[in-house]
């Protein structure tokens, strides 16, 4: 009993001491509390001071958020990639459509837009649809190289469609199954691309050349007149009459040789794509292609006959 009394007494004294201590510093504590309150108020208003206060408070939690994000980031990469691809596809489509709304004339060095597009003279001779696809198989070392895509006829892919990547021209769809399609890449002797240089000179780019070993890092552009000005590093694009969409990058000039026999130049092109690690591509569809083809076939089916009457006179 006595023992318990004594402890409660000493407890009372201690509590009293504590209360005295608190009352001694009550004003200081109130002062500090009010100042903290002021700091919070300053921080809540969006001023320089507030930003600084909030930022320093966020430095710690920011660190943890960053860590957490670094881990979770990996799991969302696939989704992010898909959304980026979809956006790319949309932007590509808008860009090509935009290029066709106004006709452009190449005048030796300058491109002059032929006035603003209006409803009366909207020149739209090609209209492209882009479909994204993933490369699931790829080769670069064969004589004719093919890519396999994870899209097929179910996704609207047909033969003869052009395939480009984010950086440049890739190839042409050759076989289509229900869920897959194969693409003959530019690294093949079976296809050539119509390309043009910076000043509009057109030519043909191909992969195989007689008497040289093919490498996935070189394309050749033959028979370029020697008076055409060019520099190493200049870009080479597809033309409007290649089966690719126009102005798709094919490569850059890596080296220039002069063929002594003909006096013309041979350009070594560095392909715009790295064909070794192709990941995502876009399959393009020209919606006016059949119309164009049928019209062009009439040229061979019904050649224009010269008028007899006119000649006799």
């Amino acid at each position, binding site marked *: 009993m006595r023992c318990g009394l004594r402890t409660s007494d000493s407890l009372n004294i201690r509590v009293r001491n504590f209360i005295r201590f608190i009352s001694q510093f*009550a*004003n200081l504590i*109130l*002062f500090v509390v*009010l*100042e903290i*309150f*002021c*700091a*919070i*108020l*300053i*921080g*809540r*208003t969006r*001023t*320089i*001071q*507030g930003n*600084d206060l909030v930022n320093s408070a966020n430095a710690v939690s920011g660190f943890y958020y960053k860590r957490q994000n670094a881990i979770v980031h990996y799991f969302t990469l696939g989704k992010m990639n898909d959304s980026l691809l979809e956006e790319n596809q949309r932007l590509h489509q808008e860009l090509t459509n935009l290029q066709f709304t106004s006709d452009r004339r190449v005048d030796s060095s300058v491109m002059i837009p032929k006035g603003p597009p209006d409803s009366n003279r909207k020149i739209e001779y090609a209209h492209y649809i882009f479909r994204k696809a993933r490369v699931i198989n790829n080769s670069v070392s064969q004589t004719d190289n093919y890519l396999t895509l994870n899209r097929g006829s179910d996704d609207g892919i047909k033969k003869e469609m052009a395939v480009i990547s984010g950086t440049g021209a890739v190839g042409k769809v050759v076989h289509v199954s229900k869920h897959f399609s194969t693409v003959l890449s530019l690294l093949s002797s079976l296809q050539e691309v119509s390309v043009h240089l910076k000043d509009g000179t057109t030519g043909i780019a191909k992969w195989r050349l007689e008497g040289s070993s093919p490498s996935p890092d070189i394309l050749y552009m033959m028979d370029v007149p020697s008076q055409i000005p060019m520099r190493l590093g200049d870009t080479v694009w597809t033309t409007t009459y290649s089966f690719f969409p126009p102005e798709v990058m094919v490569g850059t000039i890596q080296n220039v040789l002069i063929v002594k026999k003909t006096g013309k130049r041979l350009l070594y092109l560095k392909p715009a794509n790295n064909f070794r690690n192709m990941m995502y591509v876009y399959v393009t569809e020209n919606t006016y292609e059949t119309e164009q083809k049928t019209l062009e076939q009439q040229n061979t089916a019904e050649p224009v006959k010269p008028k007899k009457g006119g000649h006799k006179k």
Partner: protein
Amino acid sequence: MSLPLRNFLRFWLILAVQVLLNKITLRWWSEPSGFPVFIPLIYPLFILLLPFETPVWLLLIIGFITGLSVDSLMNTGGMHAAATVVIAYLRTNALNALLPRPLNEYPNQAPSVKNLGWVPFLTYAGFLILIHHLVYFSIELWSFSNPGMLVLKILASAFTSMLFVVAYLLLFTRQISARG
């Protein structure tokens, strides 16, 4: 007029004067280039003129409310409140140092020129207003990268504020003795 009522009226009067002063930004009369723009702050005077026997906790709360009122008028968050709480905390110590007798021996009185005299009162007011401006402008500028500018701003603003304080004292102190 009772002391609380007089202080209540003074609160509104000083706030009104402060609002008027907010409309004019002073460039220290002649406007030399590079001189900081500032506003004279007269509302600390309200804290300075509260009665002697006001306990410190009440001073702190009144100071906080005053500062918040000015903040809401000037859109400055809690900067004025922070500065005013500081001088409300220091007020009792400053008065204890300046007065010959302990504070509780002045019942029903407030600091004024009459019971302190001109020089001690101006010392008291000048010191606390300087502290107030020091805190306020340090928070407002939020950097010590240009200390000359800060000091110039504090001194010029404190001096101008003191001019307004003196004007207030001359206007509202009755029967100033000639010897001061």
